[in-house]
């Protein structure tokens, strides 16, 4: 099987949903009209066309056009050596398409990265939270309307995705927090310190909610 044949087989199976794009530099691409069907197409490509390796998932911001997002899947079959690119468009209002983790486990981090950088959601992803930026970061930096110089954002008091296991303890330096003197564990007053940590958690939650950030997993519950 060659890559163009694989593209034709996809077209034969899914009909009008699939349209073949012109070959460029020897690479075959197909466009999928309905992003909701991407998981089905991927299952077929893996089971019947033996595309067992997902090289990459990428997203594209067609800023100013509608639909705004393009999500691009790079498929490869290690047994037959063919490669195929599947592209599908998602509108900005919707910004969600089905996850393909159940087809290839490697999609997990790729989808998290796309969510982190572009703000496209993946329905059915078990753990969709930010991966490169920190949890609570309000913007999506790879969007075309995000400036290269960056935007000022309120740094969450805790610059980790979750409170660290020793948070609130005497030997933890809190980012952007107290002065060096106040951090000195020997003069610490535990009551006020824990109040301060709680205050920061509240503020982080506020920032997240103000920007429509989906609720991440809460802090790890302490066993008592």
């Amino acid at each position, binding site marked *: 099987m060659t890559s163009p044949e694989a593209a034709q087989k996809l077209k034969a199976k899914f009909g009008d949903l699939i349209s073949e794009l012109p070959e460029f530099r020897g*690479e075959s*691409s197909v466009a999928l009209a309905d992003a909701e069907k991407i998981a089905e197409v991927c299952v077929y490509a893996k089971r019947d066309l033996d595309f*067992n390796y997902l090289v990459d998932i990428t997203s594209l911001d067609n800023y100013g056009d509608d639909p705004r997002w393009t999500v*691009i899947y790079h498929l490869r079959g290690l047994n037959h050596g063919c490669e195929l690119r599947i592209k599908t468009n998602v509108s900005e209002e919707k910004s969600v398409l089905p996850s393909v983790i159940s087809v290839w486990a*490697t999609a997990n*981090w790729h989808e998290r990265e796309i969510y982190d950088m572009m703000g496209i959601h993946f329905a059915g992803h078990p753990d969709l939270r930010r991966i490169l930026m*920190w949890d609570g970061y309000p913007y999506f930096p790879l969007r075309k309307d995000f400036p*290269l110089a960056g935007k000022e954002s309120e740094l969450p008091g805790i610059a980790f*995705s979750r409170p660290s*296991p020793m948070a609130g303890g005497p030997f933890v330096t809190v980012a952007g927090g107290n002065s060096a003197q106040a951090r000195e564990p020997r003069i610490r007053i535990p009551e006020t310190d824990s109040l301060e940590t709680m205050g920061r958690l509240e503020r982080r939650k506020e920032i997240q909610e103000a920007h429509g950030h989906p609720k991440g997993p809460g802090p790890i519950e302490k066993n008592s």
Partner: protein
Amino acid sequence: MPTVQDIEFKDAAARSAQAENLPDLQEERMVLNMGPSHPATHGVLRIVLELDGEIITKADPDIGYLHRGDEKIAENMTYTQFIPYTDRLDYLAPLANNVAYALAVEKLLGIHDKLPPRCQYIRVMCAELARISSHLLGLGAFAMDMGAVTVFLLIFTEREKIYNLAEAASGARFTTSYTRVGGLMRDIPPGWLDQCQKFCDEVIPALNDIETLLTRNRIWVDRIRNLAVITKQDAIDCGLSGPNLRGSGVEWDLRKKQPYLCYKDLEFEIPIGSVGDCYDRYMVRMEEMRQSVRILEQCIKKIPGGAENKTKEPVNYDNGKIFLPPKEKVMTKMEELIHQFMLVTEGMNCPPGEIYFGHENPKGELGFYINSKGGGVPYRLKIRAPSFVNLSIISKLFQGCMISDTVAILGSLDFVMGECDR
């Protein structure tokens, strides 16, 4: 084995009376924060480990501490300007990154198979030197984490020679930026090939030394045999690439399967593992270095023009619209002056379209997806970093391992955070 309750309350009645009031010690999990600055995480990887005693029940890697936004930066500069940024992806093998990026842009331009043969050979040699350099360091760090410090000293002696070679060719030891779109920054200097041959002659005995220290070392073997076994199926499903994929027995090497440059004229073999444990990954890397030396030696013999390039073999793609013309012509000829001006101010005029190019980097498949709308600046440049994908398997691998195994597993996966976080 008696539980803590059994020992504390010997009487069964007292035990059951106390049972309701006691916290369930069996169920208690401890959360341990490993990294981001832990010597075994080779950079700034943070892993949140949930432990049941010494056994890891859950591992949650937290990456992004070295995120610089390379993809965003790429959208705002010409293709040539981005080359120095590729040095900083896998900073243990900058030469290989340079080659990968240049080939990706050349594929977009449609000239990747029209490069002059001398350029192809030099690039292959660069990529293989980078592979040896990266594998040596990965191996040295792996062994040092396991307590075998001598290996680390041995490998640095050899890596130093590679740095010298990189310096002689490009002028820089780490941030080489040696390739250009359509060619190289400059030809290799006279005497470089002899120096390279000398390195080849010296690195094989050094590898033998390392092997005598490790390969049959009882401690080393007992420590990493059958540890963190990745099955063939898992390796493919999780998208592993490079030595980690081949260690699991999948015979996939882009140099063989999708040959680029002059790899199809060179003889080399692809080592694969049989079990997929840490030991197999170690052995695959050892053998790959020997194969790289084999490639280097063939290149030294076959390179068109030889050491001095007396026959004046071209090194760069001869097209003033893509590659900067020679400086003496720029100063004297009108057309070359215009080309120079256009290339420097606007960059080369790339056709609209999209390409993906995967390069067999030391760590795995380094891929560049470039979406161009025409002009000298990419509309979107996505870096498919092998370390990013290879790391995504660790939450699965760590489950059920002892906490002291984490350093061995991380060492055997051989990742670089500069590339993972981009």
